[in-house]
């Protein structure tokens, strides 16, 4: 019964992604692209272990991302995520350099290089901590709405969420930064995750999507009134 309603919600709300759905069911077509299509399961209803807090938060975050990107056709900006990936990559690079240098020149000769790499690694760790705490906070999506006239800079929508450990209250915060006036407005809601998941752990988009739309519209309409 619950699975049927989830399927109904999928075909109703997923109008924009019906193309990918066709790729899922094709068996014989071109071999390589058909395999890739079968691998991606963007359309399968999201089913996770409902007792696993991080899986719940991830699935809610991903679904909120999907709603904003697919329904309102915003463009995702990967700047924040790329920054974090770069810092991590540089740290691992230092570690690999230390490993290889120590292997090529056995210990006593490699001391200065090792000391440099170790210190740099921990400095990068510090930078990463500062970056995630202050710059990224808990933002997991930065999306741009391209201005249709092409003249004004883009409006920016930011999504951030929090779900405390062993708690069931999920808070989703949507921030709108106007491109023109650089003003910032935000709206959030806190709901129990039980409202969005059924007893088997499947995310019911029918219940979740209206919440996101309501947040979005409340921020969008304020602009028009002003």
């Amino acid at each position, binding site marked *: 019964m619950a699975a049927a309603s989830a399927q109904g919600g999928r075909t109703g709300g997923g109008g924009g992604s019906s193309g990918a759905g066709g790729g899922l069911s094709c068996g014989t077509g071109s071999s390589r692209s058909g395999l890739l299509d*079968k*691998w*991606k*399961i*963007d359309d*399968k209803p*999201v*089913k*996770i272990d409902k007792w696993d807090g991080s*899986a719940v938060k991830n699935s809610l975050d*991903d679904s909120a991302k999907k709603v904003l990107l697919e329904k309102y056709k915003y463009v995702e900006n*990967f700047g924040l*995520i*790329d920054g*974090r*990936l770069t810092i*991590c*990559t540089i*740290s*691992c690079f*230092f*570690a*690999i350099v*230390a*490993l290889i240098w*120590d292997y090529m020149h*056995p*210990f*006593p000769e490699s*001391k200065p290089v*090792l*000391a440099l*790499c*170790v210190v740099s*690694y*921990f400095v990068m*760790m510090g930078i990463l901590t500062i970056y995630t705490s202050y710059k990224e906070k808990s933002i997991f999506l930065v999306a741009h709405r391209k201005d249709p006239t092409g003249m004004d800079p883009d409006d920016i929508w930011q999504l951030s969420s929090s779900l405390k450990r062993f708690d069931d209250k999920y808070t989703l915060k949507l921030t709108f930064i106007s491109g023109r006036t650089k003003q910032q407005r935000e709206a959030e809601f806190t709901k129990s995750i039980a409202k969005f998941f059924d007893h088997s752990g499947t995310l019911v988009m029918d219940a979740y999507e209206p919440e996101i739309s309501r947040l979005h519209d409340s921020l969008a309409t304020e602009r028009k009134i002003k």
Partner: protein
Amino acid sequence: MLSLDFLDDVRRMNKRQLYYQVLNFGMIVSSALMIWKGLMVITGSESPIVVVLSGSMEPAFHRGDLLFLTNRVEDPIRVGEIVVFRIEGREIPIVHRVLKIHEKQNGHIKFLTKGDNNAVDDRGLYKQGQHWLEKKDVVGRARGFYQENRSVEDRNYLFLILGL
């Protein structure tokens, strides 16, 4: 096509998230590696923590104890100190006590070692024709040790079960 449900989480990730997972794993490994290398740099020894493998230093050290080593140039080796050294051509380091030292004016030393629990000194263990050890064979000098409180009978029984 087989539906492997546990892979669903992976399939749902895009390239960036996959890369982040790989990086996460790499960072954990790198952190452990950097801590070890950092200890190497601070103590000056190429193996700052060693495990005692034989009972040749009883009753001071038993098999399975952890030893913390340093190998600083400014600390000279003196008789009675416990050193961990490697014999040329052998990989496994040995933990014994220094018995005799010959020292030259320029600081170059030759020393002889013996395990507390052994009947004879280590000349029989050294390389063919080698009678003394030198600074370059030393991995480090023991500065501290960690021993689990387990009675001797229990430990022997444990090693018997493990087939050692």
